């Protein structure tokens, strides 16, 4: 078994994962997103009493995140487990590649799919916002907290992409040592817990027990802090998200992904496929 990692091999595996996800019609979610957004912007014009720009932004960012989570969790789990179910894992492992390269390639491939997804959805969101902007009376634009076509939205979508990278890594991590059903349950569970970071961090404010508070604080640092990637509210309200915050959060995400993929490679390398 080779321990070295070749970028070329990882790239080829990633390209295959990307092609497979296109064949599996994963990118159809983009079409669904565009339909959802365009119809929502028409309906919201009637329902929201002048708040359509805010709501289209909220809806667009929430949909980018939600579609991305579905793809990251359910495709992510299938990446490794499907190879085992189809028994194609034997053919794959017979090729000159390490299990680490396979795990990394699968991750990079799905991340590329997610990147394309997020980019196209962001473009659709900007187009819908630009149209809404063009048809709005300039007087009412003065009251907007942020312009309709706001480049700051890219900060939110960028951090959503980093968050999806972490979720993909979680899904791949669990799928390397357990069944697809359990991997899905564990991943969804961890993603939910990952949004309770602030509660875990401040647990000592609601319990008197010091050990319990320390345990909660420990979990806060060990479990993925997915809430930290969420800057949607700040961006929609035109509040600044500093470059330092974005850089540190992205760095945190990258290190967390690296940790998970290292562990995934370890478990996968020890898995017996007899």
């Amino acid at each position, binding site marked *: 078994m080779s321990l070295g990692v070749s970028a070329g091999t990882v790239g080829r595996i990633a390209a295959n994962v990307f092609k497979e996800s296109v064949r599996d019609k994963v990118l159809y979610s983009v079409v669904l997103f565009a339909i959802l957004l365009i119809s929502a912007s028409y309906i919201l014009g009637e329902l929201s009493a*002048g*708040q359509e720009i805010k709501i289209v932004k*909220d809806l667009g960012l929430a949909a980018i*995140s939600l579609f991305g989570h579905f793809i990251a969790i359910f495709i992510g789990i299938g990446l490794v487990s499907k190879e085992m179910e189809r028994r194609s894992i034997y053919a794959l492992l017979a090729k000159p590649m390490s299990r680490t390269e396979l795990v990394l390639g699968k991750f990079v491939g799905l991340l590329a799919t997610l990147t394309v997804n997020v980019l196209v959805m962001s473009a659709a969101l900007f187009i819908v916002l630009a149209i809404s902007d063009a048809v709005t009376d300039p007087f009412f634009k*003065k*009251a907007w*907290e942020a312009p309709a076509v706001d480049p700051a939205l890219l900060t939110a979508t960028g951090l959503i992409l980093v968050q999806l990278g972490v979720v993909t890594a979680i899904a791949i991590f669990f799928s390397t040592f357990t069944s697809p059903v359990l991997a899905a349950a564990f991943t969804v569970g961890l993603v939910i817990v990952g949004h309770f970071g602030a509660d875990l961090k401040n647990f000592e404010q609601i319990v008197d027990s010091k050990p319990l508070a320390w345990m909660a604080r420990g979990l806060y640092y060990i479990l993925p802090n997915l809430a930290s990637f969420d800057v*949607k509210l700040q961006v*929609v309200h035109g509040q600044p998200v500093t470059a330092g915050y974005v850089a540190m959060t992205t760095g945190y995400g990258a290190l967390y992904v690296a940790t998970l993929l290292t562990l995934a490679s370890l478990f996968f390398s020890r898995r017996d496929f007899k």
Partner: protein
Amino acid sequence: MTAGRLPAVPVLVAAAVLLAGSIGLQVRRDRAFHTDRPAEHVLYVQSPEVVRRLALSFDAIVADVYYIRALQVFGAAQKKTRQAKDYELLYPLLDMATGLDPQFNMAYRFGAIFLTEPKPAGPGRPDLAEKLLLKGLKANPKKWEYVQDIGFAHFWGSRDYRTAASWFQKASEMPGAAWFLKPLAATTLAQGGQRSAARMLFKVLAESGEVEWMRKDAERRLRQLDAMDAMDALRRVAATHRSRGGPAPVTWDGLVRAGYLRGIPADPDGFVFVLDPWTGDVRMAADSTLLPLPDEPPPEHQAVPGS
């Protein structure tokens, strides 16, 4: 292998026929048994903190849903004419929307306008409007608009002109506040309860409203005040006609022929005023879009000029 495949067209036709049959049966059953109940607004979870946790990172879009529900509760109640208007969920929905998104400017501002609207046209809860705006002010301490809106709640909802004037004054002293707040505070203190003060308040809201709905609402209220002024003038005309020995019953045609009016008078939305031929009283047409008119406070509640 194709032996087991079903032919597409006949199967689709059969499915369509079966679906049509089920729809037909449902329509007949609903007509026969009246099984449908009127839709009720229900708020299953009442704590913004709980909903914020359940929403994970989708709190903004969930806040939007609660805001739209609040608009629907208000709109649905407004459409009811004879039935009892139910605004019970209005404040909890707005509290939820602003709890999930503490920067949701319009949820505070619209919410305050809706809650302030006096009965029977609205819930008549200026106290809740103030509570909502104070919550907004805590999250956004620089928003002079919320301070202005608290003044509005006291002016229009509780008819407490002295308190309203003090809030307008407080808003005028905040950084970036609109120029009209100082004169508005002075007018409210001097003429509160008189139409002139209400006219000034709605004029500035019509000119400064952040969204179209706010401006249109203020413009509608100005038209209501115009209609009230017009009715007062028409009552005076009818009284003059009678005092000068004009024939009874008095009619619009009679007043036009006698040269008191140039034409049949209508409110600003185009609905002809109703004239009582025996008393000379003037009312709005029952189907006027400007109804219901706001109540005017009795003279003892009006601010004393110079106080």
